[in-house]
């Protein structure tokens, strides 16, 4: 437990009090002299005053000595802190702090440091927790008083962590007693900062940039190649020129889609912490998405079945254009993954309470499920939008990564049919902004073949279903959101 450091100023107060007492005795002596006329009485009083003053100073000196020998609670008049003062100082700093001696052992660690590294780190070498040869070198530098910029350590075990270490200048502590063997020992404060999360975010950002650049490289390489060909081999080939210009247009549109998706993602992420305050109608949003995708579905001979159970309007707090984009991305994926002449189902239904189970039949059918954005159960009513396809389904290896940027699950699609790789990431962020939940149930074609005939009747072909759950906030207004990682 940290204690107040006010004890450290007590010696100064004591010195002030001594001055007052001596001053008071001297004033009393001068006043006595003024009133006493008898010389012998004057001398006796002077001797008594001197004797009292000598006695007082003697006891004061005894007390100071006793303080130096035994006290471990107060700072001394020598200006050096005691062990306990150093520890209290470390405990009072609102960051992870460990006190290290010259051999590198941890002599004290505050609770934040113990939480960060190990509860039993005191008495052990710091290098056992901060495994790095550079750490020892930098600790030696700190003890020799050299300038020491922060050291960043990547620790792999027991859990992967990135920790910044800042060393103080060396501090001497006041000896516990005259015979204290550590009286010449010095210490440094190591201030530790957990950078694991920040580092992870930076790595994610770097990966994202690398992936975005890679995605743009292919259409750019293609465009450059066609320009060179049109200037070279195809210079006098009008038939090839027409074909190539068409391909170049496709490539330019592909780059445009990627940039549009990148901007959409950025826009949604920047507003993710703000829950929409306006109302949106889910029925209308589904209708708008269906209108846009009807030509694609028709081209692939896929029938779009819509079941909204005669629901008029389904109002939620949400942004209509974001809801349209959410359904558009999910439906487009479903259409692209579906075999020719299959069915994509879109349903909207109202749930009296949200019990946390988006797919009641998952266990029975042997399908795999995943909570991409979790929504804790609630007594509030909810709207459920489910989009299901009869495609190949997602394999168990793909399932945990659905929603990651640039992670494509459509491995068997041709390059032209593949999207930007950002569609489901955008869906995930729209769902998070709307404080909704996103769940997927899938049965992969290989898993389906292994099911027994009874279970096959429940889900007679492979496929996937995405469910988005919106809490009906017209009835309840406080529900937490929790993203599953």
């Amino acid at each position, binding site marked *: 437990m940290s204690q107040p450091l006010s004890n450290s100023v007590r010696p100064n107060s004591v010195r002030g009090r001594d001055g007052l007492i001596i001053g008071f005795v001297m004033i009393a002596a001068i006043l006595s002299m003024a009133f006493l006329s008898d010389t012998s009485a004057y001398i006796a009083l002077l001797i008594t005053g001197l004797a009292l003053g000598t006695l007082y100073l003697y006891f004061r000196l005894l007390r100071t000595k006793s303080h130096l020998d035994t006290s471990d609670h107060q700072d001394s008049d020598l200006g050096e802190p005691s062990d306990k003062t150093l520890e209290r100082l470390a405990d009072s700093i609102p960051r992870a702090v460990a006190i290290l001696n010259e051999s590198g052992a941890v002599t004290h660690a505050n609770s934040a440091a113990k939480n960060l590294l190990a509860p039993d780190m005191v008495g052990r070498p710091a290098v056992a927790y901060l495994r790095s040869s550079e750490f020892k070198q930098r600790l030696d530098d700190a003890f020799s008083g050299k300038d020491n910029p922060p050291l960043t350590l990547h620790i792999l075990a027991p859990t992967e962590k990135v920790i910044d270490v800042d060393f103080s200048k060396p501090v001497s502590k006041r000896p516990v007693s005259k015979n204290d063997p550590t009286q010449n020992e010095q210490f440094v404060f190591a201030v530790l900062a957990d950078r694991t999360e920040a580092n992870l975010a930076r790595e994610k950002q770097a990966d994202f940039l690398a992936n975005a650049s*890679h995605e743009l490289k292919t*259409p750019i*390489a*293609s465009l450059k190649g066609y320009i060179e060909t049109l200037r070279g081999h195809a210079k006098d080939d009008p038939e090839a020129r027409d*074909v190539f210009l068409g391909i170049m247009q496709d490539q330019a549109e592909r780059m445009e889609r990627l940039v549009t998706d990148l901007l959409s993602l950025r826009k949604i992420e920047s507003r993710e912490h703000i829950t929409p305050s306006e109302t949106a109608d889910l029925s209308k949003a589904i209708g708008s998405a269906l209108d846009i995708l009807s030509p694609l579905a028709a081209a692939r001979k896929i029938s779009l079945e819509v079941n909204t159970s005669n629901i008029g309007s389904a109002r939620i707090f949400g942004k209509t254009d974001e809801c349209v984009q959410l359904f558009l991305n999910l439906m487009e994926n479903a259409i692209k993954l579906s075999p020719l002449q299959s069915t994509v189902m879109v349903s909207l239904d109202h749930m009296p309470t949200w019990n946390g189970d988006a797919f009641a039949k998952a266990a029975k059918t042997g399908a795999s499920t995943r909570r991409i954005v979790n929504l804790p159960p609630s007594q509030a009513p909810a709207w459920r939008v489910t989009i299901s396809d009869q495609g190949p389904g997602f394999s168990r290896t793909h399932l945990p990564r659905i929603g990651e940027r640039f992670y494509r699950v459509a491995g068997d699609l041709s*390059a032209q049919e593949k999207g930007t790789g950002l569609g489901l990431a955008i869906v995930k962020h729209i769902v998070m902004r709307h404080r909704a939940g996103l769940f997927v149930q899938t049965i992969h074609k290989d898993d389906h073949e292994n099911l027994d005939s009874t279970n096959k009747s429940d889900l007679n072909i492979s496929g996937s279903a995405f469910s988005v759950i919106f809490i009906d906030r017209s009835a309840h207004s406080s529900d937490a959101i929790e993203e599953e990682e």
Partner: protein
Amino acid sequence: MTPYVLIVEDETSIATLLEYNLEREGFETALAEDGDMAIVMAEERVPDLILLDWMLPKLSGVEVAAKTQQKTCLSLCYRREAKKMIA
């Protein structure tokens, strides 16, 4: 005899570009859009050169290179890992 090049690339725009230019330079070409197809085609007729994409549907470029045991594979990708494949 005309040299025969097998192009393994799922990106149609790149494949068309390679096909056109190689044919204009006097090569005979064939196109495989995925790894499985590449293996079958390389077995049917052994190419003089395989131009191989790294990221392919079904089988990756590395797997195709290993299965065909082709000495003359050129990688069509930009990634660092491709160097290992060529080596």
